[in-house]
């Protein structure tokens, strides 16, 4: 056997010059594209709001600030439990991971169901002026992201209860965690700007 063939065992190692793990980089690029997507909706929202020269929300619309505030608290708390779950598995506490993921999923589901319930009680539709359109677009876009996050959390929760993940290997929780916090951050921006300010 020649020296050349001895030096090669299988295909050459993939060349990656990035200092970030490829899966985390993928999630980061995805979130960057999401920021741009939300940015375009926020641009439309600020345009509608500034060009309307009216108080916000315009007469005769009313926004359920209190219920949305409770919903915000639920979603923020779900990020705390998400972080707790991930911290638990890093310390080898599987029960903590399972409880953290399950609570996060349930709170996320509560947020989404409450939002759907509120839609039915708002008294205006997406076709009611630019206000109605941008309100439903922004909150609906966020709701769609919560739904995707819930799917990721569901898979992570099922895997956690099936005994997956270890203190060394928990990428399957890390990535949904990043996404979930991003969804939470976006809601805080939506709630602050659309409902309160």
């Amino acid at each position: 056997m020649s020296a050349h063939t001895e030096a090669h065992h299988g295909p050459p190692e993939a060349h990656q010059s990035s200092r970030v793990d490829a899966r985390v980089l993928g999630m980061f690029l995805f979130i960057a594209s999401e920021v741009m997507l939300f940015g375009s909706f926020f641009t439309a929202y600020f345009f509608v709001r500034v060009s309307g020269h009216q108080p916000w929300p315009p007469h005769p619309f009313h926004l359920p600030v209190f219920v949305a505030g409770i919903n915000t608290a639920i979603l923020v708390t779900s990020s705390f439990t998400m972080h707790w779950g991930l911290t638990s598995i890093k310390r080898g506490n599987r029960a903590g991971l399972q409880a953290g993921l399950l609570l996060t999923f349930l709170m996320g589901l509560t947020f989404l169901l409450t939002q759907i319930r509120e839609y039915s009680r708002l008294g205006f539709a997406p076709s009611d002026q630019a206000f109605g359109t941008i309100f439903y677009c922004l909150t609906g876009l966020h709701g769609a992201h919560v739904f995707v996050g819930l799917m990721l959390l569901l898979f992570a929760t099922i895997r956690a209860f099936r005994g997956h993940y270890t203190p060394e290997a928990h990428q399957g929780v890390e990535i949904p965690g990043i996404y979930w916090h991003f969804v939470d951050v976006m809601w805080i921006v939506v709630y602050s700007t659309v409902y309160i300010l």
Partner: protein
Amino acid sequence: MRNPFRSEAEAYRFLLLTIGYFGAILIATLAGGKWAGLAIFAGLTLAGLYWFFRRGESERPVQTAPRRRGGEDERRILVIANETVGGATLRETIRERTAGYRANVLVVSPALNSPLKHWVSDEDAARAGAQQRLDASLARLRESGVEAEGEVGDGNPLQAMEDALRTFGADEIVISTHPEGRSNWLERGVVTGARERFVVPITHVVVDLEAESEDVRQAPT
């Protein structure tokens, strides 16, 4: 500058900052009116940007340890040099480091470019220049008995080193620069940066090309 979504822990920290940021703006707006909210928004935004960029400067880089490649009798040397690659001091250093081993030397010549040309992707001239210097250097190394391969690397010497480490691996990195005062790389802290980033022995060789050429000029007389 690090992105705030690099890991779950950093995303969580970013979420807490977002809560604090919007919480302060909301409280100021509800308590003091629109202008108070705007003032808090402007103040916190400026403070946040300042902190974000300053933190990036003071943060220690992630260390890279290349995987060992080659046989036990092989010594892999990664040489990073630009104009100074042909210097006699560098050639002597490479010979010393590979003495008694089967030498495998890779010379990387970064395609140094101006920031403006870099940002407008005008790199052809820089790469062609680096290739010319590399060809001349490899020829001089061969003349002095050092067999080496070469490639043109990224314009950033640290990035060029990292790229080469991933494909070539190295037992040692040799960085060749001009003497202090004339070296742009030393001024930019390339050697210090490399020692912080790479878990590989690093030798810094100072090559005074002017003195060497003076020697050459004086030799015939």
